[in-house]
């Protein structure tokens, strides 16, 4: 089958399902649910068929042309698109299945499922996009779906505020992205990705390195927004206001990975600019450390996971910037799997206990939900980078690419971040499986329903076996599988184990203080629990600045422009009133003035 037709089916089936559900099934929840799930299933099958078909030629048609702008619409079928597309379709489908159970009692189910369909369409459209503008369009649509899904429970003020914040912060990044793309179109006259990447005729041959740095950094702004890198990261923890399956799908596994995906897509451009690489590395490593430190003191289960997503995305970006294309993509895919798993487990707890506080979940018997807890432990171990789970392989590749690239300081900091990751992950695990007081015999705790457990079990297995995809992935990306000696893996393994051990010391053992070692330094603890004051700075500086500008200009409008016009009208009216007074109505005065005028006129005319 022609891959383009298959791709159209993969991408547009969710859209059709979305439109049908929104237009005709607002009351018929079950039909809407079935439609969206059917669409999701079609996408999965199609995406895997595409993946099995292997890489093939890019296909595109001209969508519009106007002057210097020519937008093509089409699909790329290289290893990157195919593999990530399959992962996106699969996780979307799993989350949709999971949502049947999770959203069972929600009265607005149709809207929820329809939005998942919208998201699936936008995300898949982005993954296969062949044109930068086409990618941008779907990128924005993904953001739109994210906006609606974060604010799904729009009656909660915190949810709608979080949705707005997410939209605005990503919009700030997207502004940079849009400017970058417009500049690229203006410079090169095209936005066709394969043509831009071409080593002989592509963008790198057209511009100086300085310009290229500017361009890729502008694009990186968009990536920072979407993939929640410092300083545009603050929306992601807030986005946890959305339903948990949404957090699993959008805000950890797929949508936030879109930024990393774009980076991987434009990898050769970034590689051509030393400065850009350094900037990306610095931002990524700082983000990784910062998010890990905040996660160390956070008690909200979903927020811990959100910060870990930020950190792992930073790892991917660091790997890609250091030249490790395979490492970055591998971590992208495997992270999607195990982070989705962690979120689905978190959702399972939250659904049951109706709280996000992991200490309370532990105290009330979270560990009695055995399947869920197994998933959480395995997912957590994978996140911590313990062998032989998926996360171990990919994190190992990331660290190796950093040290291969010669960025030893960054490598060292990344190791430290990996240690912190292991630490806070197992802090979370121990909070749940080893609560600080013995469990009461509470018979009401039972594991979730099969539709919730099914995806969890599936992803657990995928997490265990995930390391196996390294070979095939390298093959489809046409890259070599690097070989690492056991010795070079040792630091990473030790760091992970150290993290787990310290977590056990602080939180797991029976005489643990459960305060964590940061608690010993109150300054740091305050810094971390206030999230490094980033939000406060935004509030104090940017929000206030915009409000001030708006107020000033509003005054200008009311007092100066409108007021000016009103004053002008007043002056006219006043002049009219004043001149009207000349019309005294006293006839004899009129006559007198007439006589005077005639006399004067006669005098002046006569004297000429």
């Amino acid at each position: 089958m022609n891959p383009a037709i298959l791709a159209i089916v993969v991408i547009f089936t969710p859209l059709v399902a979305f439109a049908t559900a929104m237009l005709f099934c607002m009351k018929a929840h079950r039909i809407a649910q079935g439609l969206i799930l059917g669409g999701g299933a079609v996408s999965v099958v199609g995406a895997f068929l595409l993946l099995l078909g292997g890489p093939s030629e890019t296909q595109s048609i001209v969508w519009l042309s106007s002057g210097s702008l020519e937008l093509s619409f089409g699909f790329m079928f290289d290893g990157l698109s195919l593999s990530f597309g399959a992962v996106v379709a699969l996780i979307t489908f799993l989350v949709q299945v999971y949502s049947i159970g999770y959203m069972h009692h929600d009265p607005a189910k149709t809207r929820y499922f329809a939005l998942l369909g919208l998201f699936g369409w936008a995300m898949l459209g982005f993954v296969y996009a062949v044109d930068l503008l086409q990618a941008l369009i779907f990128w924005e649509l993904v953001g739109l779906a994210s906006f609606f899904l974060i604010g799904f429970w729009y009656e909660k003020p915190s949810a709608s505020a979080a949705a707005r914040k997410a939209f605005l912060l990503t919009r700030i990044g997207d502004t940079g992205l849009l400017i970058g793309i417009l500049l690229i179109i203006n410079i090169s006259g095209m936005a066709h990705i394969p043509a831009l990447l071409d080593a002989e005729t592509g963008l790198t041959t057209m511009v100086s390195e300085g310009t290229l740095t500017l361009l890729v950094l502008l694009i990186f702004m968009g990536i920072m927004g979407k993939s929640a890198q410092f300083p545009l990261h603050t929306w992601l923890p807030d986005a946890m206001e959305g339903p948990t399956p949404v957090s699993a799908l959008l805000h950890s596994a797929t949508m936030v990975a879109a930024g990393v995906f774009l980076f991987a897509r434009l990898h050769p451009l970034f590689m051509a600019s030393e400065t850009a690489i350094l900037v990306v590395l610095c931002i990524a490593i700082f983000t990784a450390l910062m998010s890990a430190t905040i996660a160390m003191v956070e008690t909200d289960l979903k927020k811990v996971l959100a910060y870990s997503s930020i950190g792992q995305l930073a790892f991917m970006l660091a790997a890609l910037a250091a030249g490790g294309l395979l490492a970055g993509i591998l971590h992208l895919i495997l992270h999607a799997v195990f982070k989705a798993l962690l979120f689905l487990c978190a959702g399972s707890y939250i659904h049951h206990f109706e709280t996000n506080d992991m200490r309370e979940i532990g105290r009330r018997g979270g560990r009695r939900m055995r399947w869920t807890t197994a998933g959480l432990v395995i997912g957590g171990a994978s996140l911590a980078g313990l062998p032989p789970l998926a996360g171990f392989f990919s994190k190992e590749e990331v660290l190796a690419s950093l040290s291969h690239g010669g960025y030893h300081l960054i490598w060292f900091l990344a190791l430290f971040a990996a240690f912190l990751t292991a630490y806070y992950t197992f802090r979370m695990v121990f909070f749940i499986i080893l609560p600080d007081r013995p469990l009461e015999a509470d018979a009401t705790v039972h594991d979730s329903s099969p539709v919730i457990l099914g995806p969890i079990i599936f992803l657990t297995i995928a997490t265990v076996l995930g390391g196996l995809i390294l070979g095939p992935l390298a093959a489809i990306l046409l890259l070599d599988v690097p070989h690492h000696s056991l010795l070079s893996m040792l630091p990473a393994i030790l760091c992970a184990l150290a993290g787990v051990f310290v977590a056990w010391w602080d939180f797991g053992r029976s005489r643990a203080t459960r305060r964590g070692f940061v608690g010993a330094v109150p300054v740091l603890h305050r810094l971390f629990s206030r999230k490094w004051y980033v939000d406060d700075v935004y509030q104090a500086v940017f929000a206030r600045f915009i409000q001030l500008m708006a107020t000033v200009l509003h005054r200008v409008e009311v007092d100066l422009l409108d007021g000016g016009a009103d004053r002008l009208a007043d002056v006219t009216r006043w002049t009219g009133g004043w001149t009207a007074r000349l019309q005294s109505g006293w006839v004899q005065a009129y006559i007198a003035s007439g006589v005077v005028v005639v006399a004067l006129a006669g005098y002046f005319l006569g004297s000429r």
Partner: protein
Amino acid sequence: MGIPILSLILLCPVLATAAVMLVPAGRDQMVRWISVAFSLLALILSAIVWMAYDQTVGGLQFEEIVPWVPAVGITWHMAVDGFGVLLVMLNSLVWFTGVLTMWSLAYRVKEYFAFMTLLVVGVYGVFMTQDLFLLFFFYEIAVVPMYPLILIWGSTRKEYAAMKLMLYLLVGSALLFPALLAIYHVAGLGTFSMVELGRHTFGIEFQKFVYPFVYLGFGVLAGMFPFHGWSPSGHVAAPSAVSMLHAGVLMKLGAFGILVVGIRLLPEGATYWAPLFAVLAACGILYGAFVALRQTDFKFVIGFSSVSHMGIVLLGLNLGVLGVASADAFNGAVFQMFAHGIMTALFFSTVGYIYDKAHTKTISDFGGLGSQMPRAVTIFIIAGLCGAGLPGLASFWAELLVFLAAMKTYPILGAAIVAGLVLTAMYILRVFQQAFFGPRNPKWDGLTDMVGWELLPRAILVAVLILFGFFPNLILGLIDPTTQILMEGF
């Protein structure tokens, strides 16, 4: 010459006005049906014109030339190019949906529809005529009915708003009329035909002198910063369908006038003044967005967003004149005229609905309206997202093209305007959050959502936005040949 289809389109509102006035008092339903029938007829005819317009050739088509006052060279010369076809379609759409929006009007129905269709006559005339005198004639016909429409059927500070609108627009006309006469006189051709005048090359000093009059005269109607003051207060005071026509098509008359009189007849004057006016337009874009952030009334937010969005049109026109990326800029500007017209029509139609039910337009009075009026809110959100330039909706392409030209011509200015998109998102999201999201407000529990035919006009507009959001080539294919011809003038 075949069927004079343009005159037929123009005849629709003329006949509608006459017919509405002849309806005996008290037969309101008949008035509504007459209006809707004629507007539907005009819509169909406009669609036929769109279909029949030969896009491969471009240029003026469907010409009708009948001498009218030969002594001074006034001719009944109707013809449309790609721009005209698009804008005639816009007017038909807004008229039709506007009539449906005002279906439930109960106060002095007959007079209302008579004035409204009169306004439509003027707008059609401006978009179709190729005669400078007739252009001004129709322009005034379009402007004058606004005064009674706002004064009689308006709300918030309606006397003030109507007077202000009238004064601003008459000042514009006062600048315009001498300029048009000067063009007629200096050309010395003894004709008002814009085709003939377009062939004549005016002296460069004359162009430099007259162009600002034309630009400012039309610019006032286009909501040009800093002479936009009439527009937001006019929007707020006017009844829904008048706001729709006002923001949807009337403001486009100004931009269209700048294009066909200013730029086409006085290209060198336009080039001379373009940098200044481009900067002013850019200021307007950002200024409108900032001021919209502070508004407390739904309609004021939309009013200032119109100032901001019309800034994009004006910016596009000026960038087109500058010639670095003319095709993109002109296409973007004309596309934006259409997209913004549909979008604001949708905005006002929906806000009008909410206002009719809740009798308030103050944003902070609402909260959680999404629970009570999901459909109305969804439609408003679609319009809002279109305003924020979201892909998949028509405005995106228009803004993209103008931004592209701006980045090419003035990179810094262009970047600033693109960054202004964040502001747009801010004021739109602020409305969403304050009015539609949040806890359900029991005060509005009694409100009924749109049903059946109430959805129809809004659904049509939404469909148009989405259609051209995904298939922009339908519009670009129509206007691009005309843009190419326009660019040959430079």
